[in-house]
């Protein structure tokens, strides 16, 4: 048993990871079948999304990226309405107007995907600023990739959050050139000048550290500390998690689900039956989500012309 994480919590983490994978695999099939447009999937990053969101409630906010599905699912995003958005339906989270790059699910604090690399990061400082001004104990989590970590707005926001001691946790998922190189891509010039983005915390006087993002228990533990610090007024932290972007299967040695599954099995926390049951449950959820999306109407063309502004109160 992992110190400080109950079996129940471990299974919850596992369940969320499975949910993400099954959901994304459903989306993957839709893409392959030409039933929806391009969607950037987050497969391989499930441990990060699950381990981080386990510490958050609907009152906490996250800001995500062009690869938002894992983050949003873990944050409690409505699967049906997310799927409907991916299929551009009127019942989607964004009523079919935003698409996967722009999914927001405000009710659960998923605020939100973003089409601009690094674009959501300054906004997360704003969520945290609102929390601070309102004097509540909510925390914002800002996800971004190692590519985004270089964007000016991201680096500016690290400084701003530190100066204002904002309750925000920066989570960098690094699927970096090194990782890419291991996957067989040739790189002429690096795009990240250092190996570990976590080391950039020191550039802003905030805690920063690097971990293996395929280890959900590690993610859970270190994020717990960072979220706690933020809730207690201790200001921002920067967590970097290395990840490998994967396909749909669970063969890869860096697959966070495979690794966690084996661990839980060997510890006797998970059984084949329970695993199968969870997967079945999520498969049903995803099927229902797809059915909901398929059965939902397209937005009315006239909708295109509405909603540039909201009505005055």
């Amino acid at each position, binding site marked *: 048993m992992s110190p400080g994480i109950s079996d129940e919590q471990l299974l919850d983490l596992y369940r969320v990871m499975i949910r993400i994978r099954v959901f994304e695999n459903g989306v993957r099939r839709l893409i392959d079948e030409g039933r929806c447009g391009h969607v950037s999937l987050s497969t391989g990053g499930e441990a990060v999304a699950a381990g981080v969101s386990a510490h958050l409630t609907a009152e906490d*906010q996250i*800001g995500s990226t062009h690869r938002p599905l894992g983050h949003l699912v873990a944050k409690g995003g409505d699967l049906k309405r997310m799927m409907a958005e991916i299929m551009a339906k009127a019942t*989607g*989270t*964004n*009523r*079919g*107007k*935003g698409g996967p790059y*722009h999914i*927001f699910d*405000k009710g659960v604090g998923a*605020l*939100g995907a*973003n*089409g*601009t690399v690094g*674009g959501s*990061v*300054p*906004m*997360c*400082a*704003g*969520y*945290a*600023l*609102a929390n*601070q*001004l*309102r004097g509540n104990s909510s925390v*914002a989590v800002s996800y971004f990739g190692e590519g985004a970590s270089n964007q*000016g*707005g991201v680096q*500016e*926001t690290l*400084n*701003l959050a530190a*100066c*204002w001691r904002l309750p925000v946790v920066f989570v960098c998922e690094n699927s970096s050139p090194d990782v890419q190189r291991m996957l067989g891509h040739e790189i002429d010039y690096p795009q990240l000048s250092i190996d570990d983005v976590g080391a950039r915390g020191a550039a802003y006087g905030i805690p920063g550290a690097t971990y293996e993002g395929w280890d959900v228990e590690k993610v859970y533990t270190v994020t717990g500390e960072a979220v706690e610090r933020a809730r207690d007024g201790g200001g921002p932290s920067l967590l970097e998690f290395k990840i490998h972007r994967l396909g749909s299967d669970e063969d890869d040695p860096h697959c966070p689900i495979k690794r966690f599954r084996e661990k839980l099995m060997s510890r006797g926390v998970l059984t084949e039956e329970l695993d199968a049951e969870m997967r079945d449950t999520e498969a049903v959820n995803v099927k229902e989500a797809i059915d909901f999306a398929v059965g939902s109407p397209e937005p009315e063309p006239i909708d295109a012309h*509405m*909603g*540039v*502004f*909201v*009505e*005055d*109160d």
Partner: protein
Amino acid sequence: MPRVITYAEAINEALRAEMRRDPEVFLFGENVSSSWRPATKGLKELFGRERVRDAPITETAFIGAGVGAAVVGMKPVVELMLVDFGLVAMDQILNQMAKTTYMTGGTVNVPMVLRAIYGAGKGNAATHSESLYGVYAHMPGMKVAVPSNPYDAKGLLITAIRDPNPVVFFEHRLLGRMEGDVPEESYTVPFGVANLVREGADVTVVAVGKMVQEASKAADTLKGEVSVEVIDPRTLVPLDEEAVLRSVQKTGRLVAVDEDYERCGFTSEVAAVVAEKGFHSLKAPVARVANPNIPIPFNRNLERHVLPDADKIVRAIKSVVK
């Protein structure tokens, strides 16, 4: 008895009143807490350093933080020390601030005001003198207010802060000391309703911001010769097309004036609207008076040469009424 205050004091009053009225209104930007800046002077002392906050020189981060705070329902008023400096932050402004409402299908809205100081006339050269409201009006999703006098400054700013949508609020750097009658109590000036600055019969001059003064001077100059109607749209988005078209229907002539770049600018838009919807009223070619697509030169004479002013408006009026 009317009370006379300056444009900057009018801004200050609007901020003060709205911050009192609504605890969710707050203010940040570079040097907003400094006592030597009349538009924000005294606010920190009243509302505290948390709600009136100096930001690092990182426009992307702090404007984005404004967007985020607005997304969760607060009412940030963010100051851009000069509109020119916003160019480092255009994704946060033109994508996140402006488009989030539409992109989320209206499930989210962004009740944020971006106060942008703008304008030329002080020899501050090409990177400290722009207007750029043409860019903001081009891009969908933001309302754009350009008050030309203290009364409108106060009333439009209160409207802007209460608007559930993002508003870019343009304050001309040379209007700060302009004086005018401003009621002490709070009031709103509605968006999308033009001000008929002066009535006339021969030509319609549509002018914006500081150029409203120049248009009025031109009208004075031509008094007895040409009867000039001056219209101040007050907001470029939404635009009171009705008011412009009604006026052109009467006068048959249009001169559009602003100090932004001419090409694909606000004067182009006004000309196009009239050529589309007021064509049959037109008795003469329309005319535009704007910056002739030139970066603002440093030398004051050159700057004057490039900027629109009453003389150039007079010439344009004469060209269309001749």
